[in-house]
């Protein structure tokens, strides 16, 4: 029931205002949609082409191989598209997980206050004391080399940011007259948190989560670049840059350039969408 309440409020408050776009936002949506579509379709059509070593090594970009081939004779375009699926999926998964966990903890912390708030704030202080990517690196190194462990590590690194944001917005909402009215109506602290505080403070973490998606893709690529994320021969943009960086020094720029370009375009698209959402929902 409580989840349904929050859902209804969100439909009224957030989704109703997402109608008209601007050209830059439309371009960002189009870019992200294209990358995602190619990331889904190309690997299905190409089968295991992203890991197949069936071409000459280090062929420059051409009509046959738009992004060229790497030193193992693999098509860089196929690998970039295969990596798009995992990178965007992980970025979005991290953003959704961070949004839900951060918003709920932030709203509960602000609504209950006192001891609960103090414990939550000190925990976020500890986590925020480390740079996100360093914290994620330490966690991934402790858990083991696995892309999902890397995703969990990135979630842990970003949750404190959303907790802080959700809490500060929830504190604003908590002092509103309609919260006092709800209390007088007989709502319990939990009912106030779930029915009023969470839906009304949700839009700020929601906007922030699109930025988290872009940061998560960057951090995830960084972890793979450092060798603790996706493991070879599986394709991932950060891992592909790591593999191609040596070739770059020898004049073959394409094995590392195109994965880097994909990271740039994807992260920038999420950032633009985040800015657009911010303006629309403010």
């Amino acid at each position: 029931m409580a989840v349904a309440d929050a859902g209804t409020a969100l439909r009224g408050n957030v989704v109703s205002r997402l109608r008209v776009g601007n050209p830059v936002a439309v371009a960002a949506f189009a870019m992200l949609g294209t990358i995602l579509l190619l990331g889904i379709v190309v690997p299905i059509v190409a089968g295991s082409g992203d890991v197949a070593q069936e071409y000459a090594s280090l062929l420059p970009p051409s009509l046959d191989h738009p992004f060229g081939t790497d030193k193992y004779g693999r098509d860089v375009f196929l690998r970039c598209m295969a990596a798009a699926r995992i990178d965007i999926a992980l970025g979005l998964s991290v953003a959704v997980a961070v949004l839900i966990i951060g918003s709920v903890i932030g709203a509960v912390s602000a609504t209950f206050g006192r001891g609960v708030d103090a414990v939550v704030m000190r925990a976020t202080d500890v986590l925020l004391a480390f740079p996100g990517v360093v914290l994620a690196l330490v966690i991934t190194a402790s858990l083991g080399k696995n892309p999902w462990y890397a995703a969990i590590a990135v979630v842990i690194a970003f949750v404190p940011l959303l907790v802080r944001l959700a809490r500060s917005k929830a504190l604003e909402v908590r002092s509103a007259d309609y919260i006092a009215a709800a209390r007088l109506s007989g709502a319990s602290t939990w009912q106030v948190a779930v029915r009023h505080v969470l839906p009304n403070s949700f839009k700020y973490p929601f906007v922030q989560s699109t930025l988290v998606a872009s940061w998560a893709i960057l951090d995830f690529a960084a972890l793979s670049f450092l060798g603790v994320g996706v493991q070879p021969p599986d394709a991932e943009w950060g891992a592909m840059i790591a593999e191609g960086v040596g070739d770059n020094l020898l004049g073959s720029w394409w094995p590392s350039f195109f994965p880097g370009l994909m990271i740039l375009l994807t992260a920038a698209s999420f950032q633009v969408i985040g800015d657009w959402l911010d303006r629309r929902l403010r």
Partner: protein
Amino acid sequence: MELVLADIEVVYGKRRRNHAVRGVSLRVGRGETLAVVGESGSGKTTIAKVAAGLQPATSGTVSWRATGDDGPAGPQRVHMVFQHPVQSLDPSWRIRRSVQEPLRYLGVTGDDADRRVHRLIAEVGLDPEILDRYPRDVSGGQAQRVAVARALVADPQIVILDEPTASLDQTVRGRILALLAELQQRTGVGYLMITHDISSVRRLATRIAVMYRGLIVESGPAPAVLADPRHPYTRALISAVPVADPRVSWDGVVALPRTSCPVPGPCHEHGPGLHEVGPDHVAGCTKADDPQKVATT
């Protein structure tokens, strides 16, 4: 039911130096309107919050006494209408849901709740069509009518009105006051009205308590206090002379610290205390017994 506040004290600040309310005792029952009047910073909104249970008192008690056959007494029979009507409605909820909210926590749902909401919306003079709107889509006057409907939907015994007309324009203000009076006549609800607007007090109050710097300096039946104010501060309020700074009196005399009266005199030495100046009419001024002296203060 009677709402009784006994010897309420509220102190703010880490070192507990800021006395917002000092030893205030009030009672309000069904069918009557107690107006708590005073300037900004006098402690009247703090009293409203304590009475509503939204803020704990540092000391003193808030109690609810059953009287007659009003049913059970308790904090759940007390509701509130806020100063800023639009801000008192959840912006992400349709008005129907906001008005229904008190019923929901009483276990009244479905058609029964809907019928009661429609009846209340009609009683406050609104079109049922407004129920499907969001607070941002209604005017201040409409929002205050909705807030009154929400406060009354669960059949409360006492409604606290915290500056209910302060954010409304003059015409809407008159209509809301007329509505409150009519609803009181029809339902017998009691009002604890917090205001600095003497014209609202004249229209609605049966009794008046005047607050100054956290203390009640005069209280009594509305006609007696309005016609024959005994405390100099009450006189100033009623004659509508603005007193912007609570440290400065209406005649420019700066109050001494930790005193309740801005006029230097015996009150500063001993404290005025409240003493009877008429039937059920008390004032905290050593000169209050003699209207001539008050007039020349």
